[in-house]
């Protein structure tokens, strides 16, 4: 469903993505990890063209991203994204946050949008908060609203960019639960995370990035179970992060 062919990107002279090739099939749950600055966030943001690329080709659901003919808003509407700092719109209340893009981009009627919005709000367990403003919710609640906002668009894939790294530790669990539940229901997704136990629990496949390159793209069993088969960089990263946990 998503295909990356030799994708490279530079910021000035600095190469953030170096010849990345991989693909994601329908129903895949892929965890992307790697040290900070390795380019994983940039990689994920190229999937919905929030970051442009200079070389290579990205195809999402049969549509070429670097084709100037591509209607980016329409494509982005089908790719759900959850950000590190939630990025709810602070001037809109919860239900308005959920319905804005449904009405303006998908062209749903207001009633229809509210129905969808409430359905997903219930799934993340926040129906009672529908009239609150983001500033009145806890970080964990805001992130769950952000997940519901993305789901209300009926996405073909969900992208998570370190969804729990800005949260207080006691709120991490509630957000991870929602994501795991989604994965079990068969949602295609791509998750950047440093929570290794969560990663083990969530996915069958791990992509490890370092200095803009995809260093490992393997099954979770290989990644976590057979460190001896991994590259030196991945081994070092794993041992560091597991020691810290």
């Amino acid at each position, binding site marked *: 469903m998503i295909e990356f062919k030799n994708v490279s990107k530079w910021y000035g002279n600095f190469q953030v993505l170096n010849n990345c090739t991989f693909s994601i099939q329908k129903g895949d749950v892929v965890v992307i990890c790697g040290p900070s600055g390795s380019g994983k966030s940039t990689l994920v*943001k190229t999937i*919905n063209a*929030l970051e442009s690329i200079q070389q290579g080709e990205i195809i999402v659901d049969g549509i070429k991203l670097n084709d100037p003919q591509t209607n*980016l*808003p*329409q*494509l*982005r*509407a*089908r*790719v*759900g*994204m959850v*950000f*590190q*700092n939630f*990025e*709810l*719109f*602070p*001037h*809109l209340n919860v239900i308005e946050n959920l319905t*804005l*893009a449904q009405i*303006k*981009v*998908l062209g749903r009627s207001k009633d229809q949008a509210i129905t969808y919005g409430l359905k997903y709000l219930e799934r993340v367990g926040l129906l009672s908060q529908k009239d*609150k*403003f*983001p*500033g*009145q919710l806890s970080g964990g609640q805001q992130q769950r609203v952000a997940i519901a*906002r*993305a789901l209300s*668009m009926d996405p073909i894939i969900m992208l998570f960019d370190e969804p729990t790294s800005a949260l207080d530790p006691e709120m991490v669990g509630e957000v991870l639960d929602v994501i795991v539940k989604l994965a079990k229901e068969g949602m295609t997704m791509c998750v950047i995370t440093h929570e290794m136990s969560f990663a083990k629990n969530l996915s069958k496949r791990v992509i490890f990035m370092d200095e803009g390159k995809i260093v490992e793209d393997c099954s979770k069993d290989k990644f976590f179970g057979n460190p001896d088969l991994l590259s030196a960089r991945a081994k070092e990263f794993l041992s560091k992060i597991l020691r810290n946990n």
Partner: protein
Amino acid sequence: MHYTFNWSFFFKSIGGKETYLTWLVTAWEWTLTISFFGFLVAFILGAIVGIFRTTNNKYLVTFGNIWTEIFRNIPLLVQIFLWYHVIPHFIPIINKAPRIVLVVMAIGLFTSSRVSENFKSGIQSLSIAQKHAGLALGLNTLQLYWYALLPQAIRIIIPTLTSEAMNIIKNSSVAFAISIAELTMFAMQAQEETARGIEIYLVVSVLYFISAFAVNLISQFIEHKIKIPNQTFVKQ
């Protein structure tokens, strides 16, 4: 220093039923009219130009920058003379417009450069991730600005917009230069005719003060109306 106040001249006729007092009231109306429409022009153009300057389109950015530099770096009084003497020479239809339109345009464009700065920095103070969040939902550029960025930016810049509105009331005094009968023109002429400068300047100054104070009240009302519970728009 010895000065005896005398206020009775305010009721002296200046022809027909008109007195200095009625003249004063008309002058105040002129000041408020110029200020209101001047701010309207400044707000609309300043918002558009300010938004241009935050886009990724280099032509729009350059256009916005040139606009801002031109109207910021020529004194308001000179801009009023440009509208009065120079522009009609190139666009003859301007000659038919009432002089107040010239002043409104001059003040509006002058202030639009400052308003554009406000909008630009207001929008740029929002985090890039907010922009990404809007785009990720599929909003196009216009929708992104209208539904996601501007409602936040406007709340941030209300205090600076308020001081621009108060500046406009003060700057409207420059309209005296092309003899529009607003408060400052009234002050100068009535002072000359009656030689009661102190009384006249006092009253006029108080009216300017009241006008600015009223703007402040209105802005506080608006700020309160659109306030969002528990929200500070801080860049993360």
